């Protein structure tokens, strides 16, 4: 296993911390309006004292997914998921993203939407969600804690079907320069840089300059750092960068429904951003093969049971972009 999963809080129990109140929304909000609010609100959110998260869960009780057929098809086509009525974890992330964003643009959410760095994502599908099912979606922020460059926070999104937890996604973001509630320094402040040698690739992704716009159109995440070079420059990147979740979604799609199973965990840790356009070499390997140096057993069922590890890096260079795991549950 890579180290991405162990650092993450992903409690098996459902729901937000007990102290949180619930705010009911009639429907999932539209991202466009939220971004406008988020951009306007970002300027006013500066580091001052320890951050304190709003103790509120946003909840939409009845989201009818029947109308998502065209959206799902566009998502599947873009990331390479096969045509299916079962919603991939990446699509559930996209569906719930506006609700999580609504939490982040609240005036009492202390961190600026623009400038948050997506560090990692851990998602679990605990039962398949099918197109046409009515789902409950809820989202909240929790666990503001120290990071060596500021404060990190988890945005949790859950999808329930008939009252049962079907999906739980934890997106961890970094706000640079902010202070954690306990004021403690991050434990990994002096963590040494890990030695890394690129494995033999299993795939090569040629990501064109329009990659960010294409995933933005499907996910609704039209953050300017992904959609335009000018927007990216404003935040210190030389060119537009690919959405991290696009890369992770492609890796998930390349493992595919047959090998990840109906229930699975999907993790990703983002290392260096993918500047567009770019050629990314990817190794999506059986965890057993990766651990044993390429000899994970002659039977595919044995290899696949341990799940997959994946790595992405700039073709021909040592620049690591992401790493993650896909594990049947």
């Amino acid at each position, binding site marked *: 296993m890579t180290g991405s999963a162990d650092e993450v809080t992903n409690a098996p129990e459902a729901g937000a911390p007990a102290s949180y109140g619930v705010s009911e929304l009639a429907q999932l909000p539209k991202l466009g309006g939220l971004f406008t609010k988020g951009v306007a609100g970002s300027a006013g959110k500066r580091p001052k004292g320890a951050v304190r998260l709003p103790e509120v869960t946003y909840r939409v009780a009845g989201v009818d997914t029947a109308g998502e057929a065209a959206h799902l098809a566009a998502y599947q086509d873009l990331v390479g998921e096969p045509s299916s009525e079962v919603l991939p974890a990446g699509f559930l992330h996209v569906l719930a993203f506006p609700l999580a964003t609504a939490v982040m643009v609240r005036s009492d959410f202390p961190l600026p939407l623009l400038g948050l760095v997506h560090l990692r994502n851990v998602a679990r599908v605990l039962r398949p969600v099918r197109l046409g099912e009515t789902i409950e979606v809820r989202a909240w922020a929790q666990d503001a804690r120290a990071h060596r460059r500021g404060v990190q926070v988890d945005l949790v999104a859950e999808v329930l079907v008939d009252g049962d937890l079907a999906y739980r996604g934890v997106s961890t973001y970094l706000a640079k320069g902010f202070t954690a509630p306990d004021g403690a320094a991050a434990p990994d402040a002096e963590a040494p840089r890990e030695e890394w*040698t*690129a*494995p*033999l*690739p*299993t*795939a*090569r*992704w*040629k990501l064109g300059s329009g990659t960010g716009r294409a995933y933005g159109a499907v996910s609704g995440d039209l953050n300017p750092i992904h959609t335009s070079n000018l927007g990216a420059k404003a935040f210190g990147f030389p060119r537009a960068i690919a959405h991290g979740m696009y890369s992770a979604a492609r890796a998930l799609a*390349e*493992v595919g429904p047959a090998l990840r199973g109906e229930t699975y965990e999907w993790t990703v840790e983002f290392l260096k951003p993918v500047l567009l356009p770019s050629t990314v*070499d990817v*190794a*999506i*390997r*059986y965890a057993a*093969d990766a651990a044993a140096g*390429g*000899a*994970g*057993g*002659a*039977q*595919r069922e044995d*290899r696949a049971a341990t799940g*997959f590890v994946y790595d992405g890096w700039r*073709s*021909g260079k040592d620049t690591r972009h992401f790493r993650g795991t896909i594990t049947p549950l």
Partner: protein
Amino acid sequence: MSTTPSPVPSTREAVIIGGNRIPFSRAGKKYVRTSNQDMFTAALEGLVARFGLQGERLGEVVGGAVLKHSKNFNLIRESVLGSSLSPTTPAYDVQQACATGLEAAIAVTNKIKLGQIESAIAGGTDTVSDAPIVVSDRLRAALLDANHAKTTGAKLKALAAIRPKDLAPVSPSTGEPRTHLSMGEHQAITTAKWGISREAQDEIAFNSHQNLARAWESGFFDDLVTPFRGLTRDDNLRPDTSLEKLAKLKPAFGSSLDTAATMTAGNSTPLTDGASAVLFASREWAEERDLPVLAKFVDAETAAVDFVHGHEGLLMAPAAAVPRLLARHGLTLEDIDFFEIHEAFASTVLTTLAAWEDEEYCRTELGLDGAFGKIDRSKLNVNGSSLAAGHPFAATGGRIIATAAKLVAAKAAETGQPARALISVCAAGGLGAVALVESA
């Protein structure tokens, strides 16, 4: 896991009478604007003429092309109609990437063995020079939407979705659909995994050119090749190449890997145009017509490997197929007189041989008790192979079968003992087809 092979059911024999091909030509040279149908018809007509099959109704003609225009949906049947075979000869197309030609032979020989047909021609053709170029997916979607639209307004709306960049044509590529790595890059990864040296690869390439040149000089191909479009020999052949010249070439694949790149244009096959055809029959059919019987097409095996997530190399399926085929006949590598291992890349041959010599690999991946064995290199591709001749994908199987049949026939005639050839062809998609040919 290895399973004990079932006894081979007893059937009658399928024999190889002879083969014919046109000289193979590097892409963009002699066969520019020559279609697959033109080339396959030429190979077929040469075979018909050689064995006096004009007006004959054969049991079946089977073949295919890897890069195929949609208008060529009945490529082989159309070629038959353009030949002097009887128009009552049925035909169909097959496609199994580079194993197309060998798979076609497996199909027709099975029908002969079962008594469903008495005679057949199998082969293949491919052209890179006349390859289909298609429109982009977005343009295609817009055109199809406009086609399906009922009203003029709806048609215009569909067409309005077309953007200038959608108009760029799309050429075929040798990229694997699931990995987006070219075949060369895939093989570079396998080469790195097995630690195959540049020198060993260049030596395979050098031998291929030397052996093919010698075979041409000795007249071996006189009754296997019909000149076409002014070409009388394979124009990729470099009789004057040397290990020194090969060593000077720059790497063409694997440059982004951590290990040194070893695969060059010299030890990789070039894109090539060409076609080939082989005549098979029951022994009775051949004898009735007083046709020569070169060899028996004894048996074949196909295999596939799990390459998508890097567990196995893309072109390693024959390494798994050969032990299964030989086990079914109680044979070992020692029993083989000629190894015809298709040189997709020099390193494909070498990684296959390395796998068979690796005890651990043979135990865990092939389910054998130990190493499969080491081959006598003097029996390998003795009259050259794809590195020298070129490799028009679907035409390679027919080229190899005809060569193998002639080799075993000559060896048996010389020694008075049966002679055997093993044919191995790797293919895109992690596929492989292998076959056993024995002197008649």
